[in-house]
């Protein structure tokens, strides 16, 4: 019961902080929209090509936008000492870490998910393909936050870890990107997508259960 209270308090606090620091909330979303909007401009009058590569554009933009907001996950807590407080509770740190990651997903990914239908329509995507794309984003975005959390926790003590973070994390995103684009490709050609989606769900559940523990260990290492 007390664990539940602590879990909820961590989420509530992070949402409240983001609400007070609204630029952190808006920047990744603005970045996402801007990057996607640049593609039609750069490609010129090629609606068919645009329609074909639209899912890839959206996925890569979402990936980079999530990376952009990744550092905020533990950075400010590390700097002002509240991370020490979070470590020094009787509750399992991995679960409090999970609460922080859930908050991060709520704040960084959910706005992108809500924006995607509009963006997809702008790029001329068909509705059924868009639904599959949304499903892959729904399963894939939490994976981004969960895997990113390990890397952020590891690079906390290094000061400016921005570029290193991207180098560490982007290769780990590859399997998920492959299955996500596989699903969308299959949907475009009218093939069944359940195989790809099952793989994506498997990746989602594996990271959900396996990443909080190493993240907690990495956090303790960064603090010591």
């Amino acid at each position: 019961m007390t664990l539940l209270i602590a879990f909820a308090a961590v989420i509530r606090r992070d949402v409240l902080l983001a609400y007070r620091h609204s630029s952190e909330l808006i920047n990744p979303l603005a970045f996402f929209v801007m990057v996607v909007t640049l593609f039609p401009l750069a490609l010129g009058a090629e609606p068919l090509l645009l329609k074909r590569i639209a899912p890839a554009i959206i996925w890569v933009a979402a990936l980079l936008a999530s990376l952009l907001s990744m550092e905020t996950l533990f950075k400010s807590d590390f700097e002002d000492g509240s991370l020490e407080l979070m470590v020094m509770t009787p509750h399992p740190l991995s679960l409090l870490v999970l609460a922080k990651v859930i908050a991060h997903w709520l704040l960084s990914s959910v706005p992108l998910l809500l924006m995607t239908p509009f963006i997809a329509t702008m790029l001329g995507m068909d509705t059924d393909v868009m639904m599959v794309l949304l499903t892959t984003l729904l399963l894939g975005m939490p994976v981004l936050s969960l895997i990113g959390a390990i890397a952020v926790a590891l690079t906390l003590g290094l000061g400016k870890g921005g570029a290193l973070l991207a180098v560490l994390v982007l290769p780990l995103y590859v399997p998920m990107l492959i299955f996500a684009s596989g699903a969308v490709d299959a949907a475009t050609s009218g093939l069944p997508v359940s195989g790809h989606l099952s793989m994506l769900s498997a990746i989602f559940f594996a990271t959900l259960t396996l990443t909080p523990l190493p993240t907690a260990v990495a956090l303790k290492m960064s603090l010591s």
Partner: protein
Amino acid sequence: MPEFILEARQIACYRDERTLFSCLNFHLHSGQILLIEGVNGAGKTSLLRILTGLRQPDEGELFWNDESIQDLAAAFYRDVAYIGHNNGLKDTLTAQENLQYAQALAVPTLSIDEALQQVQLNGYQNTPVRYLSAGQRRRLALARLLCTHKTLWILDEPYTSLDKSSIQMVEQLIAAHVKQGRMVVMTSHHETHLPAPLVQKIELRR
């Protein structure tokens, strides 16, 4: 009243192949204060971080009620509160929100209003922390100790940026805490006026 004992056995800490301290032993019982003194760079903060379990001692072991704190792990933190150099407060949250968060992570005791009253911050409940002065933030961090149930307070320079009357107030809070059969470990550069019979001193030399 349950009796608590914090015991250090042969603790050592090295940094950059320099020995900060070694073979450090002490027993701290309920109702006692451990005051750690020493010049800058003598390893006071390192010792405190070892006592909090955030940092592993390079040699030796720490025991809380005869159980190694490494084995106790998270259970140790049911009893321990720590204030480091940073106050662990969120600038954009109000004083009340900061304390609410602290209470949610621990066992609450005093109400937030009472705790703020005790550190003379009454009326600042809804003020965002970024509008508080350095001394007021330090006092708010101390209020966090008051509103949660913790046996052992570990305080790193609690008097930093406090004025004379605030220092006196904090000393009274520490004395009251110890009187309830609990304990405090702290470092300080300032002259302290803590009840002398209860104070153990460790001086770290370079």
